[in-house]
């Protein structure tokens, strides 16, 4: 396991990115950041700026407007970067699938490392998803993303 993966998995800065969500998943993500679940013992902290982010938590169905901003923000995040889609909306769109304002779910244009299903998923499920990503990184099964969308890199 390389030094980079060691360092990355032991100190993840979590950035919460909500794209036209109904806010239920946002509330559950906020719950996961409270002292009761204490993600700081895993080395994870919440950050406010995309430039400090290592792990982007997506929530909400990204409609046409939000999808543009999501692509820009993804490019602004310093690589290597991990993305986790929280809830059913960023995975498939669930009830908003095929709606007039939603084109494609984020998994069509972003490399996503894990999907945490639920509407909304419990904080335990969100933490479990992050731990699974950490496990796959450490065992070498998965790699974080190293390229921006604009430069042509899509799937690694």
């Amino acid at each position, binding site marked *: 396991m390389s030094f980079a993966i060691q360092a990355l998995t032991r100190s993840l800065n979590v950035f919460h990115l909500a794209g036209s969500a109904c806010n239920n998943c946002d509330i559950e993500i906020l719950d996961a950041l409270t002292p009761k679940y204490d993600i700081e013992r895993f080395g994870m902290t919440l950050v406010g700026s995309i430039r400090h982010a290592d792990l982007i938590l997506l929530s909400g169905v990204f409609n*046409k*407007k939000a999808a543009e901003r999501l692509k820009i923000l993804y490019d602004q995040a310093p690589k290597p970067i991990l993305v986790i889609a929280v809830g059913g909306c960023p995975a498939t769109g669930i009830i908003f699938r*095929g709606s*007039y*304002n939603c084109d494609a779910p984020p998994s069509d244009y972003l490399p996503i490392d894990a999907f945490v299903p639920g509407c909304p998923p419990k904080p335990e499920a969100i933490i479990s998803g992050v731990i699974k990503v950490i496990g796959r990184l450490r065992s070498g099964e998965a790699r974080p993303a190293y390229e921006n969308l604009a430069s042509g890199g899509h799937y690694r």
Partner: protein
Amino acid sequence: MNRDDTIERIREALGKRLLDFERKTSSRIFLEVAPDTVPDVSRLMFEEIEARLQTASGVDTRDAIEILYHWALDRLDCVVTVRTRLDRHNPEIESITPVCVAAEWVEREMWELLGIRFRNHPDLRHLLLDDDWPAGKFPLRRDYEEG
């Protein structure tokens, strides 16, 4: 002034232009007027009665496109809803933004989703939809077809 007096005052001011009146509960009053009367009613509610425009909602019923203006009389703890019906094939009405500036964004949303044209609106452009949304397609109409 209490609730009943205020309602009487509104009814007197409107006179014959009040097409329908319904008091569903003691604090929910529904008035119906013709589209041309809407600016006068809004001026009456906003400036004389000093009500607050809570919001305005647009509905596409099968017969017509309706707009409901919900005026909250906070001090009297009741809401007066003014309803007007527009022609489905050419929905057009005078904007009440010159009277009550709070209506500006609500009318933008009603225009882009239901296709109601507001005359004399200061800034009628897209609010929720993308700026390059195809013109003439209004998603919340009953006959909206995808694609």
